[in-house]
């Protein structure tokens, strides 16, 4: 139950490089209202009635669905959807889906990640409506578009609008609260011990840039790379963020790595542990993550 959200980094490097998809926002034409709003069309998908038996196979989407009040319409979520706690976790896999097991939930809407998009034809032959949630958003607009589309599909248009407005205003307030600096603080964000890291193009780095942080890895076209340790040492970032905390990595173990005491972030105690799920999903809890990060940058002299 642990390393699911990082699978994107695990599958292939090529997958990561090409994973830079962006959400389509041109095809959304929801009708306002709830039950009365149907039929509704999002992209190629048309729902005749409000779904009441939703299966979510993406942890990010699960968080979004519950945040827009569609949780009561969700009958099953995949094994990695551990938030919110009331989500009906099953042993369905978002990566290697057992379609037979899925069908037993009699879903009237299935949500999958775009990297599992090859399941769509099979589900379509079973007349199960499928929404493919785009992966690897590169801006908050992508995130908001996904929430808006989910709102339309679930008959929660107003709740989705409210959530987007709330996230926007909270993030703006956080960005304003972050101290203004002449020179941004530099950082390295560790996905795993082999030094996979998100680049400046990733969503998390785009958000970090808003609070005066600059990623030491700027590789346009890639969301993440496996960074050479030498390059990390040469860059000598001000802060090291850990998002592999769930796998036994913590500030102490990083500081104890051979030679790492030469890094200023280690000497200055600027190794910051972040929640693995919050940092690798792109749901409403990004706001909570950024609140933590703003607290951190506010304390750096």
């Amino acid at each position, binding site marked *: *139950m*642990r*390393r*699911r959200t*990082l*699978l994107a*980094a*695990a*599958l292939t490097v090529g997958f990561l490089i090409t994973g830079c998809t962006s959400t389509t926002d041109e095809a959304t034409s929801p009708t306002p209202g709830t039950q009365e709003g149907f039929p509704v069309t999002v992209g190629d998908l048309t729902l005749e009635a409000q779904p009441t038996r939703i299966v979510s196979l993406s942890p990010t989407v699960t968080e979004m669905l519950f945040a827009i009040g569609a949780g009561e319409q969700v009958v099953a979520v995949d094994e*990695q959807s551990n938030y919110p706690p009331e989500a009906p976790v099953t042993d369905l*896999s978002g*990566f*290697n889906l057992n379609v037979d097991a899925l069908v037993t939930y009699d879903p009237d809407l299935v949500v999958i990640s775009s990297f599992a998009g090859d399941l769509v034809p099979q589900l379509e032959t079973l007349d199960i409506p499928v929404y493919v949630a785009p992966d690897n958003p590169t801006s908050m607009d992508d995130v908001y578009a996904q929430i808006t589309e989910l709102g339309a599909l679930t008959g929660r248009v107003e709740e989705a609008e409210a959530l987007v407005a709330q996230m926007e205003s909270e993030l703006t307030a956080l960005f304003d609260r972050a101290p203004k600096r002449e020179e941004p603080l530099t950082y390295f964000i560790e996905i*795993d*011990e*082999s*030094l*996979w890291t998100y680049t400046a193009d990733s969503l998390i780095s785009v958000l970090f840039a808003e609070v005066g942080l600059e990623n030491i*890895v700027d*590789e346009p076209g890639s969301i993440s*790379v*496996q*960074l*050479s*340790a*030498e*390059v990390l*040492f*040469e860059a*000598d970032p001000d802060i090291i963020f850990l998002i592999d905390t769930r*796998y*036994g990595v913590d500030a102490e173990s990083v500081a104890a*790595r*051979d*030679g*790492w005491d*030469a*890094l200023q972030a280690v000497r200055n105690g600027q190794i910051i542990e972040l929640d693995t799920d919050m940092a690798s999903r792109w749901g409403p809890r990004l706001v909570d993550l950024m609140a933590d990060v703003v607290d951190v940058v506010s304390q750096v002299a």
Partner: protein
Amino acid sequence: MEPVPRPTRLRPWWLLAGVVAVVGSAAAGLVLGPVSLPPAGVAIELLNLLPGVELESGLNPRESAIVLRIRLPRVVLGLLVGAMLALAGGAYQGAFRNPLAEPYLLGVAAGAGLGVTAVVALRGDEHLGSMPVTVPLAAFAGALGAVALTYLLGVAGGRDRSPATLILAGVAVSAFLAAVQTYLLQRHIDVIQEVYSWLLGRLSGATWHDVRLLLPYSVVVTVMVLLLRRELDVLSVGDEEAAGLGLHPQRSRLLLLAAASLGTAAAVSVSGLIGFVGIIVPHLVRMLAGPSYRVILPLSVLFGAAFLTLADLAARTMDIPREVPIGVVTAFLGAPFFILVLRTTRRVAL
């Protein structure tokens, strides 16, 4: 019947060339890297390791750490892993009397891989680094199981089997083990990233801890295989001839296979699956320096070490600031080389 190899002795000139290759590749690996450092500064940092020497290198503490904490353990580990894989390749080729035998192709690496995957997947919450003994042992058990399976399948081909039969058996065993491994990973999707980076082979993140882990196995395996180098020469003539000369061919063969598998497993447990070293290096040595295992085995240790260190240098500098998995580099060089060996197999003296 293969021609009887003339028992040639290892010429000092070749031994010297091997030592020069090791020193040269290590120097290149220490001086060159994604970050440019002044060679003189690097040299002084290394000299400072000697007792009583304390010179000003002009490097700042981070640059010093790059040399001593990142490059040096990585180069040493590369030397050890390369030596083990090349030596194991040479030993397998002799013990099986098969020019195509190589840890990767025999399924040995896949077996070791499965062993490590099983430990990683089933360990619970324990940190991998905290199990220094379990991982090599699991790798060794997997490696031995795989080589036994490959050997039995290959032998089932009967007396007339061609060298390719054994390799086909190895391919089948590898595929089977990979399937088991995939199943385990599907059941433990959380470790897939860890295992995946390991499967591609990696010397990035090398530490002195890895070196200390591998070193004792390297010494034992090297001594064992080199002690048996004469037996290998006789074995290559044929089991009956070997028995006629008063040797125990099966016992020697088993010892060699165990040693080679142990070496492979130890290397694989710290570096992941790095393919083709065991076929490129012994064959180059055989072509250049002579067909006797008394020449091939010691030189494979030296040139294997140098080869992998240079391959790793390519892996860490070809796509700065990224790391390229070293298994990708060796496969890139090794696959064409394998074809070459296949085409010239008839001419390769065993």
